[in-house]
């Protein structure tokens, strides 16, 4: 599903944020991405969502190299990738329902279908009774779950989360992680950046570890330099 081959990313004016990273995440597989602050976790996730482009190497989603796709194609790639942000990125002047419905509206789903799917999604994260609320009236954990409901509402095959439990208490964090595990069980590939090592080890999934931009555990051996794969 997701494959990185010798991927490097250098931001202008600084060293390599990622260097020669290779790994594979199969369809329906769940993995944690960990490493110290500044190790390159967010950078790796942004490459999958085409928020940034790799300096070198190949980023494949379903065997398509998305590192060089045209600007016009980017939205369609993103529709296959549900993203959960640490700061939720909700629209605060819209109801919970409208926030969750946004990906479906964008995809042109019919009105009736939207109602059905938004409620199914809110039910999944346990917020069905909050559909008419404004996000500002919800707790941090509830806002995070609205973000998750929005990310999964159009059933993307890939789910990414960047420190989704950053400022939640351990119990809530665990609940959120369990939720991700449920999506994995129905065939979604899930990749979660986190440095909550305790929780990660409890969950017992594949762990990819980054150190100074290099993948030191969980990755694949790099192909010899100069001839990627």
């Amino acid at each position, binding site marked *: 599903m997701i494959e990185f081959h010798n991927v490097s990313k250098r931001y202008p004016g600084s060293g390599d944020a990622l260097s020669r990273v290779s790994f594979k995440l199969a369809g329906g597989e769940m993995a944690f991405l960990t490493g110290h602050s500044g190790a390159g976790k967010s950078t790796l996730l942004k490459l999958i*969502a085409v*928020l940034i482009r790799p300096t070198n190497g190949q980023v494949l989603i379903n065997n398509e190299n998305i590192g060089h796709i045209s600007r*016009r194609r980017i*939205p*369609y*790639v*993103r*529709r296959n990738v549900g*993203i959960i942000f640490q700061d939720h*990125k*909700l*629209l605060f002047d819209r109801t919970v329902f409208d926030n969750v419905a*946004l*990906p479906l*509206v*964008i*995809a*042109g*789903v*019919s*009105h009736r279908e939207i109602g059905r799917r938004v409620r199914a999604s809110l039910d999944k994260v346990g917020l069905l009774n909050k559909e008419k609320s404004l996000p500002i009236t919800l707790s941090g954990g509830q806002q995070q779950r609205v973000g998750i409901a*929005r990310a999964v509402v159009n059933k993307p095959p890939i789910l990414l989360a960047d420190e989704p439990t950053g400022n939640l208490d351990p119990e809530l964090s665990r609940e959120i992680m369990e939720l991700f595990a449920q999506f994995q069980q129905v065939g979604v590939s899930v990749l979660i950046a986190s440095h909550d090592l305790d929780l990660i080890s409890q969950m017992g999934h594949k762990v990819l570890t980054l150190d100074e931009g290099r993948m030191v555990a969980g990755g694949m051996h790099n192909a010899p330099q100069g001839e990627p794969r």
Partner: protein
Amino acid sequence: MISPSVYIARHMQVMLATLGDMIRSPMSNLMTIAVMGIALALPTGLHVILKNVQQVTAQWDGAAQISLFMKPSVTDKQADQLANILQKRQDVKSVTRITRSEALEEFRKNSGFGEALEALEDNPFPAVIVVFPTEQSDNLLTVQTMLASFKQRPEVELAQLDMQWLKRLYAIMDFGRRGIWVLAAMLSLSVLLVVGNTIRLAIQNRRDEIEIIKLIGGTDAFIRRPFLYTGFWYGLSGGILSWLLVTLSIWLLSGPVSQLATLYDSNYSLSSLDLLGSIILLGLSIFLGLAGSWIAVSRHLDAIEPE
């Protein structure tokens, strides 16, 4: 992937949603619409007035006449003979004679200087022949050659074409027409800038929203759509406002104008913007609204990229 009916429904939905947004915050929108309406009403109103002037003069257009003032030595009889000769010309429709005594009598009646005239021994008025050209020859060029040939006549002291003023009026109107075009072009440009600026502010206000929509896979077209519809509504309502302003102004002017017309023995009444003109006004206004928002959107949307 998306069926046509869903596609159309989506457009309708965005169209109505943007209208709803505008109605919910009327003040700032009314300002933009008022600026558009007034800016478009100005050249449109001037155009309507010019068209009215054109209509009035068109009624007088077929009324060229040449007045031939005889030399003082020419007797009424000699003038009669000349009138008969002129009457036979191909390009002359009819000829009217004013004898010296008729001219005197008329002057006495209308001027109030009758007493003073009594004191004169001789009748100071010359005989006058008024020549009306036929319809075919009633144009500026032919009439002017006729005028030239009449001037050659020994009996004629002065030949005067009563169309000179018309020619001058036409020149002034032509100038006016060009002026209106220049004005219309400049004001259209300002309308474009006003809409563009309003949309630019709207884009800035919704920066976060645009960023989030891009993050979850919204296409450029999807993001552009509400702003373009907002531009459309600005154009439509600005156009309607300017139409109302023009119609109202013409209505206010029509009373005094028909009074004036009665003084000239005419039943002329002001005509307002016709159907075609109204359609052009609305179409232009909508075009300017759309174009203004298009420019703003294409200049400012690309700059918003999610991080």
